[in-house]
């Protein structure tokens, strides 16, 4: 979904790999967008792995409408825009502490927030994936 031979594709891929926070937006049953900051692990292709605490609104939202976006922060001046468009579903991925790529990306934050990978995985126990339809930006 990203052509990394283009300037945008290369930059978007680097940011999707490196950035800690993405803004996941689902849509409530009444049609309101609901953006929340999330941790995420992009697989380099068309799938993004997330973990949710149980009972969170986004889990209810996707029961009636699975469409979502994940946007990264901009550069504060209107540039460096990366928006992932897709659909969100609960998956049977292993717990976060058993996904080395996820633990490696978030090890520092997990430690700073006084979690272990195991306790994080116990709190954020619901694996989810965005199936990416396209990645837009500039």
């Amino acid at each position, binding site marked *: 979904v990203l052509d990394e031979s283009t300037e945008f594709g290369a930059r978007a891929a680097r940011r999707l790999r490196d950035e800690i926070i993405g803004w996941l937006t689902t*849509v409530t049953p009444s049609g309101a967008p609901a953006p929340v900051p999330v941790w995420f692990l992009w697989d380099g292709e068309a799938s993004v792995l997330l973990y949710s605490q149980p009972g969170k609104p986004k889990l209810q939202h996707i029961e009636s409408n699975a469409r979502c976006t994940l946007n990264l922060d901009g550069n504060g*001046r209107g540039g460096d825009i990366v928006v992932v468009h897709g659909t969100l579903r609960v998956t049977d991925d292993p717990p976060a502490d058993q996904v080395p790529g996820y633990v490696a990306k978030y090890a520092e934050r997990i430690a700073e927030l006084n979690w272990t990978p195991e306790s994080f995985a116990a709190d954020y126990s619901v694996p989810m994936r965005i199936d990416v339809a396209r990645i837009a930006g500039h």
Partner: protein
Amino acid sequence: LTLDESTAFDARAAQRLREAIIGWLVTVTPDGAPRPIPIWFLWDGASSVLLYSRPEKRKLENLAANPKVALHLDSDGVDADIVIVWGDVHVSADPPANEVPAYIEKHRERLDAMGWTPDGFAADFSVPLRLEITRIHGW
């Protein structure tokens, strides 16, 4: 709705809503997909945010069918400084951007950087919109 600027979150949120140049306006398409776009905005310090759109933009179609939106600011990249505004957006009778001194003042540096005069910007972004805030949330 007003922020209680005697609390730490509200004071920080108010400062960022006054100073941040870019917000992410999220509308919803008629088929239910969210559409986040970066946008300039002017908060009135209370419950209203002034925006301008180009006339042909798809967000106007989305808003005509569903005025519910969110406007979030960038995070600090780690996990703090989260500010999310919820509300409804409608086309408004506000004057053009070049006749709103606070809007021009806030965005003067970016206008200059992008080679726009206030008049040129106002001609391009000719549709005034108001976001009526129902809730401001964050941490």
